[in-house]
């Protein structure tokens, strides 16, 4: 039940924020902040919960469209809870960074912000693949609006690119989900989209590979990984600060989460076979995008490419197929979520004050304070990366 509450607070908060604009254009941000803070507080209740059974802290399973075996199945384990905490925390940060920056159509902005967050929480908790796909779309469309309406000079191009990349590959995932459900029907005689049912499906290895690839392409676009990364620099450089914070901090993590939760467990053999290719792609991502990042002069594009590079490490960890690497991948997700969000806020702050993202023209106008903050944040980033002793997957 608690998971439904988490998601509905954000959905309802979004609607409320939109409506409240009619009273005063400053109300929506207060509503949004309240919604995210309440969400975070509710989530903290999950942290200490004991994990009986199969490691699922909390589960909810209700019928949705019984004819096709589609259920409203939400559940959270340690990984989901960590990711949700990151989402809510960065949600607060995002609201904060939009606080003074967004002055037009505030109601609709915070509506989109909260609905994106709701979609992300849904993605992190859905255990019915149809429901998962539904949330996958929910987080996409509001983000499209955030970039397209409140973005910078080239916002329409960037928003459209983001939308098409995610939508086309999401389509492939949908096909994969349907084919997987069909094979469940063939094998057991009834439809199901439930995660645990689909885990039992056996198919020939060629078919398993194709279905897996559908998922993989969708997730590695979101991650993003070479060669599907080129939407990210555009989306980041054009999005408003809050959009960048959510994109880098949270949305990219849904791709990694998808790989860990679905692509690998549902298709263990195909994934095992595919691992060398995935790792190769990951390494190309790391090196190639770092190299491209080095050449950038737009500070937001630079951070965007380093994001791709770092998410390459996550993918490498997931497909390295051992305990340490997997935990390292989750650790990197958290660390990158925080540090990339912080870096984008700094970049947003600089752009807000100096009115350019071109680093060459920054020169020495950076005062003591800005430079120090930047250095401290880079330091903080390293601290987080080294911080440890999390028991992630119980």
């Amino acid at each position: 039940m608690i998971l439904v509450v988490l998601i509905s607070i954000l959905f309802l908060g979004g609607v409320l924020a939109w409506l409240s604009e009619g009273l005063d254009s400053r109300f929506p941000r207060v509503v949004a902040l309240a919604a995210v803070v309440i969400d975070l507080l509710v989530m903290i209740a999950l942290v200490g919960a004991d994990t009986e059974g199969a490691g699922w802290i909390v589960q909810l399973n209700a019928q949705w469209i019984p004819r096709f075996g589609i259920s409203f199945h939400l559940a959270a384990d340690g990984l989901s809870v960590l990711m949700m905490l990151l989402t809510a925390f960065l949600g607060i940060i995002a609201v904060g960074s939009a606080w003074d920056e967004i002055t037009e159509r505030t109601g609709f902005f915070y509506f989109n912000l909260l609905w994106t967050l709701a979609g992300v929480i849904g993605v992190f908790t859905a255990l019915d693949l149809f429901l998962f796909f539904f949330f996958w779309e929910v987080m996409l469309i509001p983000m499209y609006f955030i970039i397209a309406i409140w973005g910078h000079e080239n916002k329409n191009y960037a928003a459209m690119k983001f939308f098409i990349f995610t939508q086309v590959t999401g389509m492939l995932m949908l096909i994969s989900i349907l084919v997987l459900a069909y094979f469940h029907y063939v094998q057991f005689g009834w439809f199901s989209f439930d995660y645990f049912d689909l885990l039992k499906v056996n198919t020939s290895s060629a078919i398993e590979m194709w279905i897996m690839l559908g998922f993989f392409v969708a997730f590695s676009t979101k991650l993003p990984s070479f060669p599907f990364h080129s939407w990210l620099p555009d989306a980041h450089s054009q999005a408003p600060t809050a959009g960048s914070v959510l994109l880098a901090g949270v949305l990219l993590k849904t791709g990694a989460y998808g790989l860990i939760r679905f692509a690998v467990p549902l298709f263990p053999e195909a994934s095992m076979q595919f691992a060398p290719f995935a790792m190769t792609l990951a390494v190309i991502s790391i090196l190639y995008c770092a190299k491209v990042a080095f050449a950038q002069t737009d500070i937001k594009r630079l951070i965007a490419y380093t994001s791709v590079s770092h998410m390459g490490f996550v993918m490498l960890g997931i497909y390295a197929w051992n305990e340490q690497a997997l935990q390292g991948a989750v650790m990197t997700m958290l660390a990158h979520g925080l540090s990339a969000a912080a870096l984008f806020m700094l970049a947003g702050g600089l752009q807000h004050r100096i009115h350019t993202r071109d680093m060459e023209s920054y020169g020495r106008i950076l005062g003591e304070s800005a430079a120090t903050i930047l250095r401290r944040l880079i330091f903080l980033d390293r601290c987080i990366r080294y911080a440890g002793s999390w028991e992630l997957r119980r």
Partner: protein
Amino acid sequence: MEDLIWLLPTFPLLGFLSLALTSGNLPKKVVGAIGAGSIGLSFLTAAMIAYQFLSSGETHLVVEMWVWMAVGNFTPGFSFYLDGLAVVMMLIITGVGFLIHLYSAGFMLDDPSYSRFFSYMNLFVASMLVLVLADNLLLLYLGWEGVGLCSYLLIGFWYEKPENGYAARKAFITTRVGDTSMAIGLFLLFAELGTLDIQEMLHAAETQWAVGSGLAVAASLLLLGGAVGKSAQLPLQTWLPDAMAGPTPISALIHAATMVTAGVYLIARTHVLFELAPNVQLLVAWIGLITLLMAGFTAMTQHDIKRILAYSTISQIGYMFLGLGVGAWSASVFHLMTHAFFKALLFLAAGTVIHSLHHEHNIFKMGGKRKQLPIAFASFMIGSLALAAFPFTSGYFSKDEILIAALELEGPGMILWLGGVLGAFLTGIYSFRLVFVVFFGESKGHHEEKEVAGFSMATPLIILMVLALFGGWIQIPVDAVFSHGEVHAEEHHISGLMHAIMIAVPLLGIGVSYLFFMSKIFSVEKLMANPLATRLHGFWFSGWGMDALYNFLFVRPFVFLARINKNDLIDAVYALLVNISRFVHVMMARTQNGQLRWYALSVGGGVIILITLGVVL
């Protein structure tokens, strides 16, 4: 008492936090008290711990604090390992570190970023202590990266000047090359031996790997890569001279006394691995020898007071590597300690000179300053004597031990010894060239300036003078650490002639320097009239052209590759896709032009094509 060892890095860390979080809002007196006081507390604690540890007679002890992370069989801890080597290192870091902090409290007083300076310095000391006390390689690596970060921040401390930022990046990136090699070494060690705990790892390596086995060679080579990066040895030595862009106390603390010797510490700490790979160990000696000679020749040609000292640091660390390479572990650590004393002294004195003469760095624009700058003169005299290994100064004992150990080595020992002696000759020349040019002869400019040296600046100089003179009598308690495989110099018989040579050669160097720069019997100008000498001078002056070489080999290709792909080739593929679909769209749209005859024509044409196809197929 030993349980309180966690306090050592905690004091400076708290100092860093309090200074960083107040970001310059504290009065300068408070900042100085926090900055220097935290290191002073650390030193007191270190001294008490060292006293207890040494009087207890134990060889080592482990203080476990908490488990850092636990993933499967990978459980590195926040644990400190205390033995003779760690005791020596922590006393050098906190002791010399405290003196340099005290000096900085006076030296940096006019700087607007006083608080930022001390916060970085404190963070540096905390990281350095973690580095030398860590009981596992991962924690050591944390300290290793921490000191690298602080070095970067402090070289670029005066960031308003772009060239300082450039020097900082150069230092960071060059050492990063070594760090990466070291990280791969750690991965290899963990993958093969299943632990990163240093003592366990060394024990496992000893029992599982044969002498000269491929894995031992690979692991020690990778660690050596990290060591040469941090310690500015060939081929990664080019960053250190540029690192002099930072404030002078930084050069004393980080780029002379402590951080640059971390590579020496690393090799000494993992010496068992190097003993398993004798060829790599010999390579260490050769690297040390070549570096010390190259840097010695370059130091003779420089005219920036700090760059001379920087090259001399590279050269002296070359001696430490030479010692490590010939198995004289404790002699190297001993030289590390004496070098910390006299090089910190020289740098701080150079700071006083520069400070007093309004940021003048060129030694040829000074001259005759011994009356004007008496404390700096005394410091330079004593520091240079120790640096040149004048008999019975601290540098004499340590360098002597290293050279004797080199001579003892079978095979290439004689060549290594000769090279080392030649290096000592060069050291005599360049160190006294500096003294003669700056403090003797006729005064050139800066006649009015008085020496700037308050209590907080003079006290550290005086203490360091005493240490540089008499530090050679200190017995370092590292025998238990290097209990096996150590070359014991005392047990061997070195002929009196060899001893005489080792004493005479540095004096000869000083003499040559006297003839050139003091009595002017020989003249540099005449020497430079020879075109060959001019070329050689230019070549040495540029640091043997290494910067230009690396620029050509690495920097330019890298920048070129980055520049041609700035717009991301992959994006062009997607753009092509977009353009194709646009093109098709435009072509299709053209067919809808509303003209009946065009429609009729295309219907007719289509029918004809279909019929033709039907007939042909």
